[in-house]
C-alpha cells in the first residue's frame, strides 16, 4: 500500500486532516461542512464555472478568495467558508443567477439559503424556463471524461451560450446513455428517443448509470479495466501461482513482468472505448493501433489489433513466450484467420511439451523446431494453420485430434498425451492453473461447452479464501455460479460489469462474492426492459431450465454423461516428477496433512502416484456432490423429477433421458 501524505488544514475553526492534493471542497464534504457548489460532481474534473463554492484561504502570508472545487490542498491553510467577504461575493453571484434563471429550483433553493428574496437586478437575457440550462458544464464533462464520447459542448458566448450537439444536429454518434441527463442539475436535458421501446427506459438507464458511476469512481483503484482491461490479471495470476506456464506445468515465471499490464499499457490506445459495446463504461476491450507485423501475409504492414486481453497473454506464458510484441502479433493473426487465441495457445503449449518429451521431432513437424519459448516457430505454425498446410493441418484440428493422431501415427504413449493434453469435451482449457482448486477442476470439467471458466471461476473462493471447504460447499458454488453466469448468455449480456467493479458497500453485504447490489441492478434491468419484476432466485430459475436443457442436448449429441466430465490429470495435479519437485514442499505437506501418508522415505515417483490416487478420487467425489445438488443421476443425467420441476419434461426429452437412466 502506498503511503498517503496527510496535511492538516483548518476549516471554520475545525482541524481536519486531508489527503495531499484533494480539494478544499472534497475535504469539506467529507467532513459534513456545506459549501454550495453547482458545477461540481465527483464524477468529473473540476471546472470552476459557477463560482458559488468560493471560500477564503489564508496561508499565513495573505488571505484570498478561491474556488474550493479546484483548489488543491498542498500546505496547512486556514479556510473560511462563510466570512463576510465570501458571503458578499457568493450572494452577488447567486443574485445574478436568480435574475437570469428565476424559476430554476436549485437556484431558488440556494438563493434562499443565502437569504435572497428577490434579485436586485433585471437580467437582459432572463429565462423563465424552470428547466433552463445554467451552463454548469456537467453534461459535457461527463460525456467526455466519463463516457469517453465527447458528443456535446458549449456553443457561442454570452447570453446565447448553450449546450449543443455539433452543428445543432441530432447526433448519430450519441449513444443515448443518458449520463448527461442524469447529471444535469436542472432537468435541461431529457431523453426523448427510446427506439427499442423498453417497458421503463428510466429504470434501465438508472441501473446502467449506477455501474457507470462506480466505474468512474472506483475502477482505477480496483481492476483498472478502463486502463488495461483484463490484462491486469497477468501479474495477479502469477503472484498466486495460477498463471499457466509451459503447458500448465507451473503457475508463475520470472519473466512474467515482461508481459504484465504495465507493459501492455504502453501499447494500448488510451482514453477511447474500442467499440466492443457502445456506451459500456467498463470499456475493457483494448486495442493496439499502428502495430507493425513481423511475419505472415501482412508482414511489414501497420495494423490495428483488437486486444490482447488476459487469456491471450496467459496463453503466451503457457507457450513459454514472454514477449509483448509476439502476443500482439499472434492475437492479430488468430483474429485474422478466425482462430481462438485460447485454443491456439493451449494447443501449441501441448505441441511444445510433446516436442520436448520426444513425442514430436523436426521430422514429424515438417521441419519445425518447436520447444517451449520458440516464438518464431509458434508464429510459423499459426500461419500454417491459417493456410491449412503442413503440420498446421494436424495442430489446427485441436488437442483431442492431436492426441489420437500422435498415438496412432507417432507411437506416442497414450497415458502421457492424455494426461498433458489440456482439453475437455474436445475444447482447449482457458488460461488458469487449476491444480490447487478442486472446485475449479469441476468448473472446467463439468462445464457444458468444454473446458472454459466462464461458467464458474472459483479458484480464489476455494484455494485462497478457503470459503468452500466441503464437497457440499463446492457443489453449491458449482450450482449457483454456472446458473448465474448462464443468465448473462440468455440475455445476451456481458458478465464483466457484474463483478469487475465492486459497489462501495459490497463488503457489507451477506454474500459479497455474488455482488448482490449488481444482481439487483440486473433484476431492474430485466424489469425495465420486459415489465416483469424479478428477484435473484427468479433469474437463477430462468437459467436452470436452459442449463438442464443444454445438458440434455449434450446427452443427445453424445457428450452429456459422467465420462464426458472427465479431466486430464494435468489439471488436477502434477503429472511428472519435475512438476512435483517444483512444488515439493506444498505437495509433501498435503500428502501428510490431507492424504495421511508420510512422504519421508518415498521416492518422487511414489509421491506422484500417491498424490494422483488421492486427487482423482477427490474429483470423483466432487462429481457425486455436484450431480446430487443439480438433481442429476450419479451418471450426470438430469432426473425425470428435475425435468418436471423445471417444466422441460417434453416427450422427446423424457424418452432420451430415460434411455440414459435419468
Amino acid at each position, binding site marked *: 500500500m502506498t503511503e498517503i501524505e496527510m496535511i492538516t488544514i483548518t476549516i471554520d475553526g475545525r482541524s481536519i486532516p486531508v489527503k495531499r492534493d484533494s480539494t478544499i471542497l472534497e475535504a469539506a464534504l467529507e467532513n459534513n461542512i456545506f459549501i454550495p457548489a453547482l458545477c461540481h460532481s465527483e464524477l468529473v474534473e473540476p471546472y470552476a464555472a459557477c463560482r458559488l463554492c468560493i471560500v477564503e484561504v489564508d496561508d499565513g502570508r495573505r488571505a484570498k478568495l478561491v474556488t474550493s472545487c479546484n483548489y488543491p490542498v498542498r500546505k496547512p491553510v486556514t479556510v473560511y467558508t462563510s466570512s463576510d467577504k465570501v458571503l458578499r461575493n457568493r450572494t452577488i453571484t447567486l443574485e445574478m443567477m436568480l435574475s437570469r434563471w428565476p424559476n430554476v429550483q436549485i437556484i431558488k433553493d440556494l438563493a434562499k439559503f443565502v437569504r435572497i428574496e428577490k434579485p436586485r437586478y433585471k437580467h437582459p437575457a432572463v429565462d423563465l424556463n424552470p428547466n433552463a440550462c445554467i451552463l454548469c458544464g456537467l453534461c459535457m464533462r461527463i460525456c467526455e471524461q466519463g463516457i469517453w464520447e465527447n458528443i456535446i459542448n458549449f456553443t457561442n458566448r454570452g447570453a446565447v451560450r448553450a449546450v449543443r450537439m455539433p452543428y445543432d444536429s441530432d447526433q448519430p454518434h450519441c449513444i443515448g446513455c443518458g449520463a448527461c441527463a442524469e447529471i444535469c442539475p436542472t432537468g435541461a436535458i431529457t431523453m426523448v428517443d427510446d427506439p427499442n421501446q423498453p417497458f421503463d427506459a428510466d429504470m434501465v438507464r438508472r441501473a446502467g448509470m449506477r455501474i457507470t458511476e462506480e466505474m468512474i469512481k472506483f475502477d482505477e*483503484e*480496483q481492476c483498472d479495466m478502463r486502463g488495461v482491461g483484463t490484462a491486469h490479471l497477468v501479474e495477479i495470476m502469477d503472484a498466486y501461482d495460477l498463471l499457466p506456464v509451459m503447458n500448465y506445468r507451473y503457475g508463475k515465471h520470472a519473466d512474467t513482468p515482461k508481459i504484465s499490464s504495465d507493459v501492455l499499457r504502453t501499447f494500448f490506445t488510451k482514453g477511447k472505448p474500442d467499440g466492443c459495446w457502445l456506451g459500456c463504461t467498463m470499456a475493457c476491450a483494448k486495442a493496439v493501433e499502428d502495430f507493425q507485423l513481423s511475419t505472415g501475409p501482412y508482414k511489414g504492414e501497420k495494423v490495428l489489433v483488437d486486444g490482447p486481453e488476459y487469456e491471450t497473454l496467459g496463453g503466451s506464458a503457457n507457450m513459454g513466450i514472454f514477449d509483448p510484441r509476439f502476443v500482439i502479433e499472434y492475437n492479430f493473426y488468430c483474429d485474422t484467420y478466425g482462430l481462438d487465441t485460447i485454443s491456439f495457445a493451449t494447443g501449441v503449449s501441448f505441441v511444445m511439451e510433446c516436442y520436448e518429451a520426444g513425442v514430436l521431432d523436426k521430422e514429424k513437424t515438417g521441419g519445425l523446431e518447436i520447444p517451449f519459448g520458440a516464438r518464431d516457430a509458434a508464429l510459423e505454425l499459426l500461419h500454417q494453420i491459417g493456410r491449412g498446410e503442413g503440420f498446421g493441418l494436424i495442430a489446427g484440428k485441436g488437442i483431442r485430434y492431436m492426441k489420437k493422431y500422435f498415438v496412432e501415427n507417432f507411437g506416442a504413449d497414450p497415458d502421457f498425451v492424455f494426461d498433458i493434453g489440456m482439453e475437455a469435451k474436445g475444447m482447449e482449457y482457458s488460461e488458469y492453473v487449476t491444480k490447487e482448486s478442486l472446485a475449479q477442476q469441476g468448473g472446467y470439467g463439468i462445464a457444458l461447452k468444454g473446458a472454459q471458466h466462464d461458467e464458474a471461476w472459483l479458484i480464489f473462493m476455494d484455494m485462497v*479464501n478457503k470459503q468452500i471447504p466441503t464437497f457440499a460447499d463446492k457443489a453449491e458454488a458449482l450450482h449457483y455460479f454456472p446458473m448465474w453466469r448462464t443468465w448473462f448468455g440468455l440475455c445476451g449480456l456481458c458478465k464483466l460489469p457484474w463483478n469487475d467493479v465492486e459497489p462501495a458497500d459490497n463488503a457489507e453485504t451477506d454474500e459479497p462474492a455474488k455482488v448482490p447490489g449488481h444482481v439487483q441492478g440486473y433484476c431492474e434491468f430485466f424489469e425495465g426492459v420486459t415489465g416483469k419484476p424479478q428477484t435473484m432466485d427468479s433469474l437463477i430459475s430462468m437459467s436452470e431450465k436452459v442449463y438442464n436443457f443444454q445438458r440434455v442436448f449434450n446427452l443427445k449429441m453424445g457428450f452429456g454423461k459422467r465420462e464426458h466430465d472427465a479431466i486430464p490429470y494435468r489439471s488436477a495435479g502434477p503429472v511428472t516428477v519435475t512438476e512435483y519437485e517444483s512444488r515439493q514442499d506444498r505437495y509433501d505437506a498435503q500428502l501428510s496433512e490431507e492424504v495421511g501418508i508420510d512422504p519421508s522415505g518415498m521416492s518422487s515417483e511414489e509421491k506422484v502416484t500417491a498424490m494422483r490416487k488421492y486427487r482423482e478420487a477427490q474429483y470423483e467425489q466432487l462429481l457425486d456432490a455436484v450431480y446430487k445438488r443439480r438433481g442429476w443421476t450419479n451418471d450426470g443425467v438430469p432426473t425425470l423429477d428435475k425435468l418436471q420441476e423445471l417444466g422441460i419434461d417434453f416427450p422427446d426429452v423424457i424418452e432420451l433421458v430415460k434411455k440414459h437412466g435419468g
Partner: protein
Amino acid sequence: MQAGTIVPAADSMIVVNSEQTEWSRGKTVSDVIKEKNYIFPLLIVRINGKLIPRDEYDSSVVPDEATVDIIHLMSGG
C-alpha cells in the same frame, strides 16, 4: 465465512484464510496482506468476524490469536 473453524495453534499465531500464520506485535492488516503477497485489488478483510474498511488496513492492528479472513472476490472474463 470461515471465522472460528480453525483456531490458532499457539501463542503468537494467527489464522489467515485458514492457514496458521506467525503473529508479531503491531502487525497491521496491510502487513499481513503484504506478507501473503495478496496483490489482488478486490479484497474484503475481517478480523474475528469484524469488517475492516479498506482505508483502515494501514492502521488496523491484528491482535494475537486472531482469525483473519481476507476474502478475494472474483474478476475477469
